[in-house]
């Protein structure tokens, strides 16, 4: 790679590379069809090809590669969840992220600058203590941090004891970080395409063919395909696509808005989150502050941005970092979050045979991209449910065995 870069730098012409394969007609039949060419779909295609040798695969998307919620999340990576199932799952994902740039031969700009979750009440301190214990037990770097240390680490954070909701403690998670979300999907798609996987953009799935309870094909805006297996990986449209296959899901779909300020010199190293104020913030390597919060107050399939949410986010972040009062907001946008009742994903088999769900990704999808791709590929290739995702099956709701992560999402909703 360094030699190739040098050669490229010294060349007289700089031809663009087609990383994702040329546009081509749909074949009539594939072994596996993946609906959704976001991070999860591309990752699943990559691991199917690399680990299991399954390359007769089509990845469909109604828009373009990584143009949905992969491009709309705030790119936060962490594994400091509350349940053992959740912590083990997200920890495995972070481990994969660490070596992803090398594996995909593309710089995903992975940075581990740590994450600090703030507590503004005694109940929240107890929750952080609990999370620290579970995390440490499973080998995740999380520890309780008190105000003297927090003040040293974050001189710009408002630590006043007479604040309306004073900070009492924090959960310091040294493993937390960020990565460039576009690069993650590009890297996976590039490597999958190099192994023969076809990516079909502007190809919307319009129906699922089922015979005797078994999936037989997918109808698209560019023609019908017959196939052996189907994976739906369409965060933000899980219910809509699920309904095509006659599958009802325990999902409510909300927009989640975020915004970004003008760039500043580097002054905030870790990611800081306050579940109490429903806000989180980090500074990107370009210097902008990314500010995100809770979902909208009611469900909607629409990515519009609203003034009330900008006011809510601004008021909340000014409680923590008053200096941002002078900052200009450059952009505000929304992603679509498929919220599940227990704030954990829905992964695995579905009531339709050979139809697999990678759904319910709420506000926790980006950080799970590598591990969800790897485990879903294993499930599809071997027909055995990997241990890591067994707790996230759809039938947990029929068994009343939810995996409750409501208290450990960055900004509780």
């Amino acid at each position, binding site marked *: 790679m360094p030699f190739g870069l040098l050669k490229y730098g010294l060349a007289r012409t700089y031809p663009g590379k087609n990383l994702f394969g040329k546009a081509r007609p749909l074949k009539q039949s594939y072994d596996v069809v993946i609906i959704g060419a976001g991070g999860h779909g591309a990752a699943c295609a990559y691991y199917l090809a690399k680990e299991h040798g399954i390359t007769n695969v089509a990845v469909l998307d109604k828009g373009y590669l990584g143009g949905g919620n992969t491009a709309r999340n705030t790119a936060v990576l962490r594994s400091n969840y509350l349940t053992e199932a959740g912590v083990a799952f997200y920890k495995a994902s972070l481990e994969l992220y660490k070596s992803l740039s090398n594996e995909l031969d593309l710089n995903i700009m992975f940075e581990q600058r740590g994450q600090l979750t703030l507590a503004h009440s005694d109940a929240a301190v107890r929750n952080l203590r609990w999370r620290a214990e579970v995390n440490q037990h499973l080998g995740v770097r999380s520890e309780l941090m008190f105000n003297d240390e927090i003040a040293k680490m974050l001189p710009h954070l408002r630590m006043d004891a007479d604040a309306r909701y004073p900070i009492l403690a924090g959960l310091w998670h040294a493993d937390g970080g960020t990565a460039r979300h576009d690069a993650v999907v590009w890297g996976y798609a590039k490597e999958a395409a190099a192994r023969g996987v076809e990516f079909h953009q502007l190809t919307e799935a319009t129906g699922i063919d089922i015979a005797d309870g078994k999936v037989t094909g997918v109808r698209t805006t560019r023609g019908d395909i017959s196939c052996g297996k189907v994976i739906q990986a369409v965060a933000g449209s899980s*219910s809509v696509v699920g309904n095509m296959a006659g599958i009802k899901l*325990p999902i*409510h779909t909300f927009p989640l808005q975020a915004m970004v300020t003008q760039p500043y010199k580097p002054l905030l190293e870790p990611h800081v989150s306050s579940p109490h104020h429903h806000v989180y913030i980090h500074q990107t390597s370009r210097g902008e502050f990314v500010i995100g919060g809770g979902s909208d107050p009611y469900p909607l399939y*629409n990515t519009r941005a609203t003034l009330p949410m900008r006011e809510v986010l601004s008021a909340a972040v000014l409680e923590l970092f008053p200096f941002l009062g002078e900052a200009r907001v450059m952009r505000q946008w929304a992603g679509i979050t498929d919220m599940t009742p227990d704030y954990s994903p829905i992964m695995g088999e579905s009531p339709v045979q050979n139809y697999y769900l990678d759904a319910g990704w709420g506000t926790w999808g980006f950080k799970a991209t590598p591990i969800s791709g790897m485990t879903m590929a294993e499930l599809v290739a071997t027909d055995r449910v990997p241990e890591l995702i067994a707790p996230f099956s759809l039938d947990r*709701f029929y068994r009343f065995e939810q995996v409750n992560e409501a208290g450990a999402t960055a900004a509780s909703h």
Partner: protein
Amino acid sequence: MKTLLCPLNGLRNIDEFIYGGEYHAEPDRKQADRKAWAEHVFFDTNSAGVVAEWWCHTPSSYWFLVDRDTVTDQVISTYPFSIDPVEK
């Protein structure tokens, strides 16, 4: 959506309301099994289009029904619970 027409209190600011979930009829309490209850409690159609849903006017604790388009965010109609949304 900045205002909502409450069937009891008239046109009010949206901040006075909370969303209460998709409407579906409760299962028969004597006959329903675990599966029926699980589906009633957790599962929804969650469709992109016009949906009948519960809303509450919080200052008066008044629950009512709203037909709303979940793509355009347009309210089609609001009406009291006494009117069955299926029969309407």
